[in-house]
């Protein structure tokens, strides 16, 4: 069973009811109500379907109800396994080719029109949608909030790390998963809000109604006056041969499997992309007991927050810059991933290729906004706002603010006399800022009293250390005049309470205190299950991941509020101020195979995942037909699949360029929001359905 039975940060729920189900006739067990794709993963199944084109095995990709790649046959019907809850006795089968429509010839049953009216429809119950709904309901508007997941909170429920930002504004220092619980509870306590969980919006219509598919069983038309689109984002795919093999997942899918559903989805992964999502994804893998061979980044610098990068590098995961994936191969699943350095034009240098034996490749190369409903609403002339990732890809902390601001703008559009607090806008801007200046710090020296050492050298919007210090000894040194500024310790009042060490979301604070001329005590934060006891010898690393020394553990202490271990180590006086973390992963884990093993077939990369249309097929078609309109690619079925061309669209400019057409001269494809397939019987709420 590939289950995570213990997790350093997440509670593993006990007492869940186990049920039996069949997969391709083989008896399996899973938890009642858990998401089917996760039950299948836990049972060791990663191949969900066999594509009719090329009989290619297909695994999960987004785990988010968007891409349809995880479709299986459930009790005779094709269903996306990532949004289907497991029930006792389910007969689950691999979807081979296209499904058979059951010969259910019972006469049409009684039908029912279901509808509800509201002032505001909020699409999406993530941080921005929840915040917007709360704000609007507080102003007296009736609100319907529809979210496609069972649990509200959007991606917060996958986020086991502590938040950046400030404590007063956006729960900084609190883990995303806990913020989600709090926001949901707050919203549920408000009477004029109707929450539709597990209810994707499938379309909005000119007559100011939205079609909502409630609980995978009924179709509800929601009439609304105005719309908040907070539908989040979807993962970008990238092009390399083997990019549709089972085992190539979006980083968000991986976080869903590992953090939400506590499934050990892999043994050894390669992460593609060094933005915050990739860095955090790698960290989450380690927390779940999964090894990380490397993080590769095509750019010459790390794309995410430096503290996130430092944190993962210190655990023993290398970040390889100027490097890309050239091939992922295996017999029906990922077995090997080959990477190579790139030249200044991002062309891979095949002579530098190295192959890793991994079973999973995480794609963390960015997100694109799910803002189609907003664009459509604007085209229809409805009052509408967008918020969160649907507006701009940014951190959840800024999304919470963005949601509140969007709510006020909408209220204004609806004629309410509201003024938007300028400071909110300023705060949102700060919270979504890209990292600012990087500064050098003078090396600290240990004294008789405890003092903090900061490994926080890059400006990011964050201040929990300054907030939690009981003696007020940590302040931000003014540069920008916002929470972007870096923290510094001043004075001599540190009591060694370790609150700053535990609260820092970047794990970028240690405490040091002199023992004698030769030795110093160092307190380091640690977010893994400690497998060691007092007296153990642990490899201590510097901020850049370089090895300092083996040090002995004096004490370990679990800080409950921040769910972080605090390790006190005896480190040599010379190294103590540099000591920033403990290696978690052995060096062997990150070694490639002795010699590279791959075929270089870049034309085989899949652009349209739903219909398995490759780069080579598209380039040939574009040339032969002089295509300059994305819509014409549908002739060879690219973009015609269940996802509604959401996954392939961002890739087309690369494809056109490869075919010798300047993407500037290319007309974009028509936008089709409906991406959730609803059975006809449910569209008319036919009674007596099985």
């Amino acid at each position, binding site marked *: 069973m590939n289950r995570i039975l213990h997790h350093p940060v997440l509670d593993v729920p006990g007492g869940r009811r186990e049920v039996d189900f069949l997969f391709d006739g083989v008896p399996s067990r899973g938890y009642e109500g858990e998401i089917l794709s996760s039950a299948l993963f836990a049972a060791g199944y990663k191949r969900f379907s066999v594509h009719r084109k090329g009989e290619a095995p297909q695994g999960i990709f987004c785990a988010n109800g968007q891409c349809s790649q995880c479709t299986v046959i459930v009790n005779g*019907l*094709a269903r996306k396994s990532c949004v289907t809850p497991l029930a006792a006795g389910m007969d689950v089968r691999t979807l081979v*080719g*296209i*499904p*058979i*429509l*059951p*010969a*259910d*010839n*019972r*006469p*049409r049953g009684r*039908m029912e*029109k279901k509808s509800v009216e509201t002032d505001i429809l909020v699409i999406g119950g993530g941080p921005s949608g929840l915040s917007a709904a709360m704000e609007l309901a507080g102003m007296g508007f009736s609100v319907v909030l529809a979210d496609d997941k069972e649990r509200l909170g959007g991606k917060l429920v996958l986020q086991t790390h502590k938040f950046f930002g400030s404590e007063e504004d956006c729960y900084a220092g609190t883990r995303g998963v806990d913020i989600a619980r709090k926001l949901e509870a707050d919203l549920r306590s408000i009477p004029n809000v109707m929450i539709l969980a597990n209810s994707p919006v499938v*379309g909005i*219509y*000119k*007559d100011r*109604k*939205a*079609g909502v598919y409630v609980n995978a069983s009924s*179709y509800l*038309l929601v009439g609304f006056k105005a719309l908040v689109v907070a539908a989040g984002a979807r993962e970008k795919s990238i092009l390399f041969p083997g990019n549709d093999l089972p085992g190539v997942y979006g980083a968000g899918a991986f976080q869903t499997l590992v953090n939400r559903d506590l499934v050990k989805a892999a043994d050894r992964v390669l992460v593609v992309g060094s933005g915050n999502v990739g860095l955090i994804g790698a960290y989450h893998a380690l927390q779940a007991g999964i090894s990380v061979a490397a993080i590769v980044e095509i750019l010459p610098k790390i794309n995410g927050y430096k503290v996130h990068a430092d944190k993962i590098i210190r655990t023993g995961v290398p970040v390889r810059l100027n490097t890309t994936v050239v091939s992922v191969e295996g017999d029906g699943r990922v077995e090997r991933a080959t990477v190579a350095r790139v030249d200044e034009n991002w062309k891979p240098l095949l002579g530098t290729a190295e192959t890793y034996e991994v079973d999973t490749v995480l794609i963390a190369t960015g997100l694109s906004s799910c803002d189609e409903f907003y664009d459509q609403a604007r*085209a*229809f002339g409805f009052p509408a706002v967008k918020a969160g990732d649907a507006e701009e890809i940014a951190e959840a902390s800024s999304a919470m603010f963005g949601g509140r601001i969007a709510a006020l703008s909408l209220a204004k559009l609806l004629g309410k006399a509201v003024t938007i607090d300028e400071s909110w806008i300023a705060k949102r801007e700060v919270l979504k800022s890209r990292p600012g200046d990087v500064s050098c710090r003078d090396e600290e020296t240990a004294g008789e009293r405890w003092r903090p050492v900061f490994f926080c050298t890059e400006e990011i919007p964050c201040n929990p250390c300054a907030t939690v210090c009981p003696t007020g000894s940590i302040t931000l040194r003014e540069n920008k005049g916002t929470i972007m500024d870096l923290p510094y310790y001043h004075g001599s009042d540190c009591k060694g309470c370790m609150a700053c060490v535990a609260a820092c979301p970047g794990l970028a604070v240690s405490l040091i205190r002199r023992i004698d001329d030769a030795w110093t005590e160092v307190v380091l934060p640690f977010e893994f299950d400690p497998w060691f006891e007092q007296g153990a010898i642990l490899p201590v690393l510097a901020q850049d991941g370089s090895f300092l020394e083996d040090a002995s553990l004096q004490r370990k202490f679990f800080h409950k509020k921040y769910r972080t271990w605090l390790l006190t180590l005896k480190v040599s006086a010379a190294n103590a101020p540099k000591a920033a973390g403990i290696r978690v992963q052995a060096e062997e884990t990150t070694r490639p195979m002795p010699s590279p093993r791959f075929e270089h077939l870049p034309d085989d990369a899949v652009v349209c995942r739903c219909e398995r249309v490759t780069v080579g097929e598209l380039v040939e078609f574009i040339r*032969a*037909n*002089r*295509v*300059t*309109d994305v*819509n*014409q690619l*549908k*002739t060879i*079925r690219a973009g015609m699949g*269940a996802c*509604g061309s959401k996954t392939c669209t961002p890739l087309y400019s690369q494809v056109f360029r490869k075919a010798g057409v300047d993407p500037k001269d290319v*007309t974009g494809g028509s936008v*089709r929001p*409906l991406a959730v*397939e*609803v*059975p*006809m*019987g449910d*569209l*008319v709420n*036919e009674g007596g*359905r099985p």
Partner: protein
Amino acid sequence: MKTFDVVIVGAGSVGVPLAYCLARKGIRTACVESEASWGRGQNRAAIGGVRATHSDPGKIRICNESIAIMSRFREEHGIDIEWRSGGYLFLAYDEAREKAFRELLVVQKAAGLGIDWIPADRVLELAPGLKREGLRGGTFSPGDGYASPLMTSTAFHKLALEAGAEFSFGETVTGFDMEGGRMTRMRTDRETWSAGLFVNAAGASAAELSSLVGMEIPVHPDCHEGGVSEPVERFMEPMLVDIIPDDESGNYYFYQANTGQVVFCITPKPQVWGTDMDNSSGFLPLVVRRMLEIYPRLRNLRVRRTWRGMYPMTPDGLPVIGYCREAENMLLLAGMCGQGFMIGPGLGSIMAEVIADGATGAAASASGEYGFIFDEFTPYRKFEGMEMLK
């Protein structure tokens, strides 16, 4: 200025096949289109049905030609357009429909149509699981079928390019220069075109285009919504048409495409006139209610997408084909009433013959084997009545 023998306005269901048919005869042909590429007007919204089963002899003749071209397309050109001779099946669930269909059979057979009455049992063989109760049978025309509008227009575009036709996209016609009852030049937002013959194949914009030469034609678009399901293994063969109207709708029809997807469409009641292409919340519940009524097993079929398209309608449901008195070198191929996709290939082939013969204006209707088409669909007719199988 660009000079061609023929300039076609509109690269859609009608214009693109015509461009190909002309170019392959060595006629220097250009096609000017305001959209960004071919088939982006009504063609992209067509559901793909192709039938010769009409109540009008001219349409029967043209569509028979279309079927001949499309059914041999792969064989002849090596390009798949997803043609399938699935047939059209008009269902009779009441006496009135049975009577009307049987009467129509006489006309249809006389026009050379391969169509006959089939009993309910045979209907159920072609569409297993269809509601048996009340089913009296239907008229089945096995030679009819369906193809992908997108693949078909892309194929014709490619063939036209290879035959030497030129296309210009994203270009809008602004006016014509007239001289002695003839058009000498066509002006657009970026070019001036000169040609011996201009063809108005502008679909929903045809009336607007002909008004530039002072001619009014009664072509007004109305809107229909369509939808497509997920693909499933083939379970039904023909295009099913139920023309019984109810309070909210007229006829509706659906078929299973070669990809396995069920494509469906309904005529709303009252008709929605205009060019508003925005989806309405009523479409899915309405069309699904009617489809499940006769085909309950569709209850488990998942709808993938919906869209809205225009039918460039004429008052009598028949196209407008002919030369203009106002400008004798303008050929109207307009008012396809939502059937441009099935009429286009045959019409293109026929018109290329006529144009190659060189007879224009009044001479065209008097000459050759296709003269009757000009008589029947002349823009100067009275536009009375309504084609029954519209």
